[in-house]
């Protein structure tokens, strides 16, 4: 089975039950290019061509031993592709095999020639040519199996890039599931809170469930995080940033609880970007507020110490380095904490559900499935709590870090 981690990671598709999104392609021309690229039949042909070109280039390089025989090398390549229990090389093209396993051969020809061979092999025209080639018809059984695997996978259109497989990009800018979900969260936040804003603007007391509900979030952040940490005046100034951070993370966390979606906060890129926002905000505000301008922030990293000059010459640079490292580490940990919590929660949920899948073919399924469903339900409740808790923790720590950035200590 594919690694279960792939189910919680970002991808270039939305996964729904197969019956909701059946795929019934009839010929290889109906399949996406990247899928054809990974087809075994195509890769064999590709290997064949690459071998020919490579052998020609190799012959001109003047090596006396020559390239191994075609059949031998291609057979070895096929074997390599399917080696190992986890099949780490599955679907890898022949050039990757040569680079990885036949390094000496590749190094014998010039890098320019090798790059040329590679780009030729992966040119779009190669795939298009193969698709239009009527000699290589895909058998119906294969197409059916492909349809089965593609069913339930709603592929995201990629106008700005090309994907390598459903989880990795090949080139350009590829739109991933988490990117769409982030936009969705952002859109929901703008819609909801501009609505709240229109009501609060008048200064009237809150009326109605929704207004009270959303406002209670904002007041909680202001009264229990911003004001206690920054003080009354600064606290209100930092509220917009903390509100956005909290609600964006909360929205992303909760997306993981929505069927067929996922948690963008379960991707390192997302959490690190948010931590970077906090760090940069701290740097900018610290540089502006602490005197002397700009340098004050960095000098502030050093704790104040009464040391003899000689000792301070030795110790202060070291401490400064440590503090700089600490600055980056604490923000990285901020990102990792959120990531780890979201990933861990989803992994446990995944494990609980795998209990039912493991017994799918046996009689024990009737016991395992209810247990699995019940356990997953209960754990989902916990996850719901964790979604709120981690959003709070991130916001609270962000507030502490920001406060430390522009207050001398």
């Amino acid at each position, binding site marked *: 089975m594919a690694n279960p*981690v792939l189910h919680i990671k970002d991808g270039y598709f939305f996964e729904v039950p197969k019956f909701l999104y059946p795929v019934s392609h009839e010929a290889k021309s109906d399949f996406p290019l990247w899928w054809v690229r990974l087809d*075994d039949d195509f890769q064999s042909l590709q290997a064949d061509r690459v071998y020919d070109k490579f052998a020609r280039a190799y012959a001109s390089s003047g090596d006396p031993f020559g390239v191994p025989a075609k059949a031998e090398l291609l057979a070895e390549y096929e074997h390599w592709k399917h080696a190992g229990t986890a099949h780490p090389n599955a679907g890898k093209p022949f050039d990757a095999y040569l680079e990885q396993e036949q390094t000496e051969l590749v190094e014998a020809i010039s890098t320019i020639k090798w790059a040329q061979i590679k780009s030729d092999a992966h040119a779009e025209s190669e795939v298009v040519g193969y698709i239009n080639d009527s000699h290589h018809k895909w058998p119906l059984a294969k197409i059916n199996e492909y349809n089965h695997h593609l069913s339930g996978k709603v592929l995201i259109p990629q106008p700005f890039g090309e994907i*390598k497989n459903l989880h990795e990009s090949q080139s350009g800018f590829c739109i991933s599931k988490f*990117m769409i979900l*982030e936009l969705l969260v952002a859109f929901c936040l703008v819609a909801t809170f501009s609505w709240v804003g229109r009501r609060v603007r008048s*200064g009237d007391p809150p009326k109605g469930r929704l207004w009270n509900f959303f406002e209670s979030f904002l007041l909680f952040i202001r009264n229990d995080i911003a004001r206690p940490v920054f003080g009354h005046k600064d606290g209100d100034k930092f509220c917009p940033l903390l509100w956005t951070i909290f609600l964006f993370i909360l929205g992303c966390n909760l997306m993981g609880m929505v*069927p067929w979606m996922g948690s963008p906060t379960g991707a390192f*890129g997302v959490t690190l970007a948010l931590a970077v926002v906090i760090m940069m905000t701290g740097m900018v505000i610290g540089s502006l507020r602490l005197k002397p301008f700009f340098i004050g922030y960095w000098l502030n990293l050093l704790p104040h110490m009464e040391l003899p000059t000689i000792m301070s010459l030795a110790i202060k640079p070291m401490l400064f380095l440590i503090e700089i490292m600490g600055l980056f580490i604490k923000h990285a940990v901020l990102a990792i904490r959120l990531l780890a919590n979201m990933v861990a929660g989803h992994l446990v949920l995944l494990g609980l559900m795998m209990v039912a899948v493991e017994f799918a073919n046996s009689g024990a399924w009737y016991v395992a499935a209810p247990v699995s469903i019940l356990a997953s339900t209960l754990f989902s409740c916990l996850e719901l709590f964790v979604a709120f808790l981690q959003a709070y923790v991130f916001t609270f720590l962000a507030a502490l870090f920001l406060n430390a950035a522009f207050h001398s200590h």
Partner: protein
Amino acid sequence: MSKPLSYRLTFRNLLSILVLASMALPASTLPSASAEAEPAGDVAAADDHGDHGDHEADDATSSHAGDGHSNDNSHKNAGPTMMHPQEFKSDLAVYTFIVFILLLLILYKFAWGPISDGLAKREEGIANQIDQARQDAEAAQESLKQYQQQLEKAAQEAQQILAEARQDAEAARDRTVAEAREAAQREHDRALADIQIAKQAALDEVATLGTNIAVNLAGQIVRKELNAADHASLISESIDQFSSNN
């Protein structure tokens, strides 16, 4: 009444959480969810795990159908970090950074600005209202004090009026009683005078009668007929004597 309602609400909330949670199950683990729902029909949903099962072995025609990594191209040609949950994707990071900053700016314009203003306005309003209420309370306290003073004064006045009234009443009563007593005395005196007059009259009559009788008796005794003039002088002599004796 309120207790069963709150129980019912709690139960309903619990139920909705359960329903939501069960809907959320497939969020990140779809194949397993579909396998749960349809154990017999969709075993192969668990990716290519069931390669050795009947379903896929029949379909698979490629030379390596049974090796566990069959015709699912969706995760082939994997990079070295594809299976790592901590994989860092720079495009996603840059995208997130931009989306977050834009979100912050848009929300600042359309939500946080108005909300901050509104909250400040509300706070100010509440503070004003509290001030106003404090002033009102002070004013009310002041008026209360005044009213209380007035009330006390009024009570005093009432007391005074009552006392005066009581005094007046007492005086009136005394006067009435005195008058009554005087009238009674007068009546008494008059009665006494009447009695005196009556007594005098009676005594006079008794004297006259007695004298007549005595004269008659004396005449009889002396056999001497007195003439009328003698008779009258004798009577008046006797009466005078009687009156002087009394």
